[in-house]
């Protein structure tokens, strides 16, 4: 395996610290830079940037406006790949919107939709497309195909890369009462290009753990080491936390711990 890049997400409120940091290889961009962000020029000059914005949900075709936006951001960042999510978070007519990642039904119909629309998007951008798995907090009876199998079939038909979000897999395993290692083994790890790692914390509404802008626990780092060893095409590991509440200390120390765990 080639040397892995270890990075984080760009958090604009930590711009000064990130501009000075020397231990981070790349920054993923969840939002376009603000016009008045004084650190952006230095960040752009200093880092390899990964496009990880919301481009649109691929249960529907992206329209020209969304494609042009994706192309323009990809060019601005000079991103090595373009990331999107396996998500379907607003109704087709736009009336209801969850404003939060939410997985599609794992069915033949949704597989066709995602394959068709991902192939169409892939044809319109100049960089490889990677797609990130999204956790479900509950099972839906109308889902017919196990998630890992659905993803495997998607990747076979699109040749798109896999952005493996490990806390998402860990949470799904947790809420299914499954062993995360065994749960992970079902996923198409040979397709993984990038790995996300983050902390999880107890959530008062969910009454259980969920994604949080927190440092990964040692157990999560061990899970990462296990996973990365099984992802021969992986090029980057990213500390996945974007929040105004995130401190520079948590971000920098998390990257450092990821790097150390990987022996990088």
């Amino acid at each position, binding site marked *: 395996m080639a040397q892995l890049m270890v990075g984080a997400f760009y958090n604009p409120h930590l711009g000064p610290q990130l501009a000075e940091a020397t231990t981070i290889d790349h920054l993923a961009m969840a939002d376009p830079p603000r016009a008045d962000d004084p650190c952006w020029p230095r960040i752009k000059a200093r880092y390899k940037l990964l496009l990880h914005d919301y481009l649109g949900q691929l249960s529907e075709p992206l329209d*020209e406006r969304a494609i042009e936006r994706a192309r323009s951001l990809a060019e601005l960042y000079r991103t090595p790949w373009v990331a999107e999510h396996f998500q379907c978070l*607003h*109704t087709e*007519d*736009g009336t209801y919107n969850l404003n939060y990642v939410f997985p599609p039904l794992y069915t033949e119909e949704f597989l066709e939709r995602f394959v068709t629309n991902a192939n169409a998007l892939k044809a319109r951008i100049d960089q490889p497309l990677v797609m990130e798995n999204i956790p479900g907090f509950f099972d839906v009876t109308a889902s017919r195909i196990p998630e890992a199998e659905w993803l495997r079939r998607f990747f076979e038909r699109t040749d798109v890369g896999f952005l493996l979000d490990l806390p998402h897999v860990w949470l799904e395993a947790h809420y299914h009462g499954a062993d995360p290692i065994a749960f992970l083994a079902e996923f198409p790890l040979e397709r993984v290009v990038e790995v996300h790692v983050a902390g999880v914390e107890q959530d008062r*509404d969910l009454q259980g753990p969920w994604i949080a802008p927190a440092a990964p626990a040692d157990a999560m780092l061990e899970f990462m080491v296990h996973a990365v060893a099984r992802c021969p095409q992986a090029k980057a590991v990213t500390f996945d936390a974007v929040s105004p509440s995130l401190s520079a200390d948590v971000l920098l120390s998390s990257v450092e711990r990821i790097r150390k765990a990987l022996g990088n």
Partner: protein
Amino acid sequence: MPSPVSDRAVQDTIIRALADAPFRGSPEWRLQELANQDRVDRFARFLARHFYHERLVHFFKYSRALARTTGRAPEAILTNPGFAALFPTLVLGSRASAVAVARLVVDHVRSGATAEIPYMEELLSYEQAMMVVESGARVWSDGAPDVTKRKNQWSTPMRVEGTMLLDLTYDLPVVLPRLLQPWTEVPQPPREPTRLLIARSSHGRVSVARTTTSIATLFELADGRKSLEDLAREAGLRPAELEATLAGLVDLGAVRFSVGS
């Protein structure tokens, strides 16, 4: 024989159940038994708190910047009983829910130490208006261009529902950027009558523009029935002025054109 329901329609039903509390409690949803109701309820509460946290941090950012004076951070209401009491009625993104949540924030901030901020009431009105104007269904995809509409687009201009005109006694736009910069004494705006138009594009972008009397008049006259000639006459505008003003209002999302017959 009933027509088969597509998986996309089922997904829409699940999204609606998560976003729309009254629907989530209805037999129409519960009898479908698509998911564990307790898990759905918990995830819906999580989503509601997340949904409004994002909006409060964004739309009430000036009140948030003033929290060290007022002692009232707007997003604190999300953990108050008042917000929990709204759960059974919340519909994420709806205007009624935006009004209800924004009202909680306004009452919360207003009860703080506002003596040094004579424009606090107007600031809260402004932030509340921004949040309410942003609500409502949006267009997620442009789809194919509609040639028919384009051809007829200069027929009958109509106010976009939800757009607001705000009359202020302080020139708030002058002070807003200063509130987000470091300050020791609370920044004060000039006391000057100011009229703002707050509108949302069909894609959900909220914009604010200073408004002159002629723009406000034109906006109020645009009811979807008056022709361009009627509008020009009633607003006292020359054709070129009318066209430029309407173009500005359309860009802002305050006016759209209905297809003329």
